[in-house]
């Protein structure tokens, strides 16, 4: 069986996988990181989003072997070691941006990438478009959009400029 070596949440791991094992299966089944979820089999729900070298990726669309030598961050790796939540996690809680919690890990990972990649600011429409790849059946997205807008200043350390519509 082939082996894959990668970094997950800052720790180096080496795991035996089948050629067809998906990255999400490696995370959930081999490493017990069940915070990353599987909500579909057609790459459409975003429940499985993780960060690969800092960028958000659907971990159900990648083979585990393709992650060789790369650095993966999952929802479990976001909070500080003392338990302090990432500002995005904090704002999701503050703004009631989750109900059943199933879409939440993927949503949070996508949202962080969205905010990081928009240092110029984000309008409501941009946030809504930016979340196109993540389905939530519970919240109607209203509070998720609010939480992301609220996390932007915390992550960038300044107030959000009035973004271009």
């Amino acid at each position, binding site marked *: 069986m082939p082996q894959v070596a990668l970094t997950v949440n800052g720790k180096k791991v080496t795991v035996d996988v089948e050629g067809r094992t998906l990255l999400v299966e490696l995370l959930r089944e081999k490493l017990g990181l069940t915070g990353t979820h599987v909500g579909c089999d*057609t790459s459409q729900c975003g429940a499985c989003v993780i960060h690969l070298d800092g960028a958000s990726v659907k971990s159900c669309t990648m083979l585990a072997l393709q992650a060789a030598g790369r650095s993966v961050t999952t929802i479990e790796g976001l909070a500080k070691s003392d338990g302090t939540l990432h500002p995005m996690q904090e704002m999701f809680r503050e703004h009631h941006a989750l109900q059943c919690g199933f879409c939440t890990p993927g949503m949070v990972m996508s949202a962080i990438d969205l905010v990081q990649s928009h240092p110029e600011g984000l309008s409501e429409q941009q946030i809504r478009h930016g979340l196109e790849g993540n389905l939530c*059946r*519970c919240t109607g997205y209203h509070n998720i959009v609010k939480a992301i807008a609220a996390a932007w200043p915390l992550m960038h350390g300044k107030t959000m400029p009035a973004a271009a519509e």
Partner: protein
Amino acid sequence: MAFEGIGASVRRTEDQRFLSGRGNYTDDINRPGQLYAIIRRSDRPHARIVSIDTKAAAEMPGVVAVYTGTDLQADNVGGLPCGWLIKNKDGTPMAEPPHPVLAVGKVRHVGDPLAVVIAETRQQAKDAAEKLAIEWQDLPSISSTQDAIAPGAALVHDDVEGNVCYDWHLGDKEAVDAAFAKAARVVRLDLTNSRLIPNAMEPRAAIGDFDRATGEHTLFTTSQNPHVIRLLMGAFVLHIPESHLRVVAPDVGGGFGSKIYHYAEEAIVTWAAGKLGRPVKWTAERTESFISDAHGRDHVTTAEMAIDKDGNYLALRVKTLANMGAYLSTFATSIPTYLYATLLAGVYKTPAIYAEVKAVFTNTVPVDAYRGAGRPEAAYLLERLTDVIAHDTGLDRVALRRQNLIPANAFPYQTPVALQYDSGNYQATLESALKAADWNGFPARRAAAAAKGKLRGIGISTYIEACGIAPSAVAGALGARAGLYEAANIRVHPTGSVSVFTGSHSHGQGHETTFAQLVADQLGIPFNQVEIVHGDTEKIPFGMGTYGSRSLAVGGSAMVKAMDKIIAKGKRIAAHLMEASVADIEFKNGSFSVAGTDKSKSFGEIALTAYVPHNYPIDELEPGLEENAFYDPKNFTFPAGCMVAEVEIDRDTGVPSVVSFVAVDDVGRLINPMIVEGQVHGGVAQGIGQALLESATYDVSGQIVTGSFMDYTMPRSDNLPSFKTGNEVTLCTHNPLGVKGCGELGTIGSPPAIVNAVIDALSEYDVRHIDMPLSPQKIWSIVAAGPKRKAAE
């Protein structure tokens, strides 16, 4: 300390674990030595199973067992039961054909399970399942609701004549006929209520486990009501006594009704784990969810309203054909009857109503309750009909609603369709929604949109919901095969902290927060001293679970009852300690005091005394402080409200976008307004989904066309606006908290508001009605055909 009692928007306790990836959903659980099950399902809508050759599959690497329907039958496994018996007009019972766990003889819909392959790994089971050799004989199939009753239609169940499950009615036919005979006008509308797929984001999963030493079975499952599953599966399917069957539903990732029912896979893994002596896990892939989770809605209806010359409603006549799918799911039969026809008064004082409902079998996935269940179908009918009456008569649609509303001083109000509304103020929610939506300012917004080349429309709908279906005795007389109470156990620990064991179960509603607020408030203890325990039949005394927006109204009331017992016992302990009479003890803000004195004991001191009974009335009172209660409601609760939507349509593409949405609801007392608002948002989003995007569609050959997220259009963030919500409060008069429920109102009120808005946007084209979903294609073809001149009335 911030106020954390009733009425505070306390941030949720459960979020800490969900946000850090420590939620514990069924598929996150793995048992030592676990095997994996893959279900082989029918890809035919209707066929005779000539033979299933399991040999090649059984010989595949890692395969431990292959079972078919005949194996289960030989082992005396029963069929999946239906929980509500409906009687026909003539008093005879409905047709209730068998619903085998794995198909025997025939398959009846695409997705019908017919064999299970169990292997060491999921992949091995999957590979082997493909090796099952099945010989079929295809049969003609029925894929649409109307086709089921066509003359000469194929029979889904050989012995169910005409595919009719039941032919039922409600209301006073003679009174309705008489009113129609003297009406100034009758307005008729034919409409469908589209078939939907609930699509909770967490796919269903189940793990069966068996303890060879004790003979105990455990089922971990994605369920809204673990006790109901234990009851149905234990008593009817697998014949395991309650003492030997534990059902655990850990964190549940959404349900919306679809996780109420007892599904075949739960029985399969429980049974197979017992046979094999090893845990067996099954997790649905999404494609499988589309063809095995119960669907919702699917009505074809003709509605007629008799009105006088001023537009006052005189009588309503409704004829509905309701699709049950291929088999009867657990509560399927009650939806188009007692949760639909009974709601046909809506918020209106229509004096006479008569409804006929025919439920039919088709070669489609079984249909059951989906968020709202029956009530959205009733609201949609009434609110579309009201707009069509306005269209046909030229009367103003808001005035028409105002004049027909049940007046605020008419409560309790007896409807002509069995229900008695206890409280409400429909004028208040209507006026408040119109104001929040700036209804009167709409013409200016329409003009501004027109200047941009867009068609803008505004729509309104009122709604009523009946929650917390009850009382048990009445429901039983109407055919319910279960009780409709809820149970709670309150365990006060020696230190004064409290564990609450509730039969309600959260699948996203935030019970760990709302219930803790309720208990902390009533016992006068800090919020963080209260722990909520749910979802495990071994821990909870009993329960009926969470559906029909009942958890607070019924489950919360059970907690209040149990707390009353705790406080009563606490008073006796306090009286002893303070040498006063029990009648003189008052309990307030967490302390027991002697009336008119400054003597008092804290809740914590009483708790400690109960467990360290040194100075204690031991001859009269048992030590300990723990109480059970069952609460059986006296009536439904009746949340109601009004929603206003605005849409803009792109003339070139026909794409509608919702540009504003207002919901003003009366849900009774609010425990956590933040959570209530979230429930409204989520429900409205699903309702907008039904109105504009979603539809479970079968082609004529019986194949499902919308079988994945690629074809079934789930609402995404950029399909939706931000929502404006508001509340008006009238208290429920018959439960101790005055609460009504809020889980489903969004899907009930929003579809007609949206459809009414789109039709309004198309007013220059004189469209009377369009069936949901209002796809760009449907809208575009109306716009492309060009404006019609209104026919002279």
